[in-house]
């Protein structure tokens, strides 16, 4: 139960990017988990070569990921969105990107499991008789911090509000003299930058192989849909719900079933209430 709550905080971190890009911008970026795994490997390389803390690496690399995201969005915009055929071919485009990134990683690093060890990974604290491993606690706290950060960014800053405006009415924004493409580039970049940090968290929780991204596609989209498509607070709540459901499932039926939980929740949410728990 406690493990599920902690897992939920981490899942929130992983899903924020999708919430932003898919939920608010309506761009079906199914390559997001691949960017997360890229972040994991970046953290691994930096830790291996320089002994840097993974979370520090994740933070340091956000500008790089931001640039990568902005670039991907520009290509996407020029090839699909401008021609008005984004939905079907755009989806295929991102699926291709996902595949290329996954295979490139396995060509570079092989398919061995990689893990980053830090000073705190093996420690734990005792809270009211329940042992809490730092390995889960730290990613959970970072995840909550990221959620809060994104929430404040969207609600309080000029660009954040502009992103919200883009998601509501592009035409109106254009009439107000702002450039929706530029705003969406920023939002997409921020979403991918979040993947850098999320990837760093991922590799400090559990070992990673290039095909780990497949496990997270379902989780990310389940959380985004359940959370109500772009609602940042909803993302956190849905992430916790999924984390608890998964850890309960793993306890009672065995870990091999836990992956089906996220996809089952996703199917159920899509079939019964596509607007999610906190839908607009």
């Amino acid at each position, binding site marked *: 139960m406690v493990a599920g709550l902690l897992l939920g905080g981490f899942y929130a971190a992983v899903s924020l990017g999708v919430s932003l890009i*898919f939920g608010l911008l309506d761009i*079906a970026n*199914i390559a997001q988990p691949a960017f997360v795994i890229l972040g994991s490997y970046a953290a691994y390389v930096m830790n291996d070569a320089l002994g840097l803390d993974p979370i520090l690496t994740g933070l340091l690399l956000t500008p790089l990921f931001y640039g990568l995201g902005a670039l991907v969005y520009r*290509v996407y915009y020029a*090839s699909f969105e401008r021609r008005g*055929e984004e*939905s*079907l*071919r755009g*989806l*295929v*485009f991102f*699926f*291709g*990107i996902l*595949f*290329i990134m996954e*295979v*490139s990683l*396995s*060509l570079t690093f092989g398919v061995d499991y990689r893990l980053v060890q830090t000073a705190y990974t093996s420690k734990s604290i005792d809270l009211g008789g329940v042992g809490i491993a730092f390995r889960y606690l730290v990613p959970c706290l970072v995840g909550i911090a990221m959620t809060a950060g994104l929430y404040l960014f969207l609600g309080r800053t000029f660009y954040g509000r502009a992103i919200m405006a883009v998601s509501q009415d592009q035409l109106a924004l254009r009439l107000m003299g702002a450039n929706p493409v530029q705003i969406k580039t920023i939002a997409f970049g921020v979403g991918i930058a979040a993947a850098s940090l999320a990837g760093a968290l991922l590799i400090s929780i559990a070992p990673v192989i290039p*095909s780990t991204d*497949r496990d997270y*596609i*379902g989780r990310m*989209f*389940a959380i985004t*849909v359940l959370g109500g498509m772009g609602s940042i607070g909803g993302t956190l709540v849905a992430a916790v719900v999924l984390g608890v459901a998964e850890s309960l499932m793993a306890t009672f039926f*065995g870990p*091999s*079933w836990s*992956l*089906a939980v996220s*996809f*089952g929740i*996703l*199917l159920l949410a*899509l*079939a019964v209430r*596509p607007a999610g728990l906190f839908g607009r």
Partner: protein
Amino acid sequence: MTPRSGLAWLAGLGVVGAGIALAGLRVNPYVYFAGYVILQYVVIATAWNILGGYAGYVNFGTPAFFAMGAYTAVFLIQSLRAPLPVLILAGGLVAALLGLGIGYLTLRLRGVFFSIATLALSVVLQTMIINWEYVGGSRGLSVIRPSGPPFGSYVTFLFTVMVGLAVLSVMVARFIERSWIGRGLAALRDNEEAAECMGVPTLRLKLFATTISGFLLGVAGAPFPYYVTFVEPNSAFALDYAVNALAMPMIGGTTSWAGPVIGAVLLGTAQQLATVTISSEMNLFIVGVVLVAFVVLAPEGILGLVRRLRGR
């Protein structure tokens, strides 16, 4: 029967005949081994295209349908030692039922949501198979081929069976494309609401497309256990099927039955060559790059390029 469709039937029979003749030649066994995979992709790409190309519903769950066919076959081999034609038919029917279910999903889910749901379906089914010990669970299961195939070695026999299945599925796709069903599907692909308003029975057409597509994918998967002789969830549910099923029609061109065939033959052959000469990971890399390149630069596929060159 119009003269054109008569001609098509003749061409189909010709291909089957050529396949049997090739099987009789007994060239290097690897030819049949690789040929089977390419033909299997012809079936898969054609089946995917009936839903994805004609109706515009992108299915990421191809592995689910393929594996349904394969695991239905495994189950029947385990329990009854059923003969191959029964396996193919049963595998197709089970996958068709799954397709029908997916068809009802389209009532609520369109576009991106449908695609994600099919992906989810694939993972849920894989988890169920992993936890089902009777068909091998996560460890997999060895399948013994029946002794004494009607002719040649068992792989050449399976090769000719696959030639027949490929011709069958292309015929089905061609028939759908030329009939009112194909026109109805094209109408709902372009604008579902408008088609519905014009009196196109969209739900019935969508159910038809998902069921037929599922059936053919299951048919492609049913001989798989005898082909590999060792079935385990990771190979039956491989993401390769999803990406290839999508890439091949995209490369060939999605609006005509010829597109998936061209795509499957070109990409399938290239992959076989790359697997032999470089590495199997490299071949997946090539698929990804080619897919993205085509989607960005030539969205109409090779057929579209040819049409543009002809100035039509």
